[in-house]
């Protein structure tokens, strides 16, 4: 799979269509984000497999925003899975990235990764490989839906009790681009307190994921307390889909809540 990407990226770089390609590199025994600017470096390009398939995914869209802010006139390529592509589409609608300045190079996720993520669309619209994994059932959400209300409460409070308030869920999120953030505002949630006010801190963030969350799960992976944040935001996405027939990143349409 990475051979196809390398070929594609080499083309893009040599033809001058892109200034650089934001992907993942294996270097010094680690995998991390890297901006490839010449073909010779492409040997070290990887798709983020470490111990398991795709377990070294990174918020590349977030890196891309940093670069685009500084160099808005240049075009960059970026490695995208299904979730990353949803992120790009949503970021375009929020005017955080310019679609004319981004070239997405897509890869489909293997079924085991799609299953682990319970992903609804584990592949981008266009990708370098043919085999696409099937969409998955949302078991994590339905298993909580099936609990008695008191058990649900106990479960979430047990999880929120562990929060160490690193803000990693927000800091890693490709869709969290606001300069002023509600979860950091002392008016809404007392700052300086561990654990942060329960369940206000997490519900406030969940509400802000309405029309935003593209279900990449990076928040879940970044959480030092292993709080199942992805499940919480999946539920939010389900509710919005039911009410407004809208899932961010699955169409080019703007969020019904987007007033920009």
């Amino acid at each position: 799979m990475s051979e196809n990407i390398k070929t594609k990226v080499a083309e893009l770089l040599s033809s001058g269509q892109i200034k650089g390609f934001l992907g993942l590199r294996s270097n010094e025994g680690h995998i991390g984000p890297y901006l490839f600017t010449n073909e010779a470096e492409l040997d070290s390009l990887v798709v983020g497999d470490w111990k398991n398939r795709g377990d070294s995914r990174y918020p590349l869209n977030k890196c891309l925003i940093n670069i685009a802010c500084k160099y808005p006139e240049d075009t960059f390529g970026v490695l995208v899975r299904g979730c990353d592509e949803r992120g790009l589409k949503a970021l375009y609608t929020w005017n955080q990235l310019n679609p004319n300045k981004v070239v997405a190079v897509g890869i489909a996720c293997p079924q085991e990764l799609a299953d682990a993520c319970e992903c609804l669309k584990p592949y981008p619209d266009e990708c370098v490989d043919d085999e696409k994994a099937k969409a998955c059932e949302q078991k994590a959400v339905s298993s909580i839906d099936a609990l008695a209300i008191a058990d649900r409460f106990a479960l979430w409070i047990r999880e929120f009790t562990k929060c160490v308030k690193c803000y990693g869920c927000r800091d890693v999120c490709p869709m969290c681009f606001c300069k002023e953030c509600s979860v950091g505002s002392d008016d809404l949630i007392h700052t300086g307190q561990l654990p942060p006010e329960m369940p206000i801190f997490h519900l406030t963030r969940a509400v802000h994921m309405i029309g935003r969350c593209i279900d990449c799960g990076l928040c879940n992976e970044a959480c030092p307390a292993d709080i199942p944040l992805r499940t919480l935001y999946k539920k939010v996405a389900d509710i919005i889909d039911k009410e407004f027939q809208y899932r961010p990143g699955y169409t080019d349409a703007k969020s019904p809540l987007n007033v920009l």
Partner: protein
Amino acid sequence: MNVMRPLIEFCGIEAERLHTRWISSAEAPEFAEEIHMFVEKVKKLGPSPLGRQKKAA
């Protein structure tokens, strides 16, 4: 409302504990009545799991 109610319910808080209604600032009696109604409703629901949890902590 349509979003918040299922969300708090997912987190184990009864949806009936959340109530919104638009009332003009000119309609003071209406406002008071609404509050009374909601207070009665919440009393019937009994103590909130949040309060119980805080006490336990």
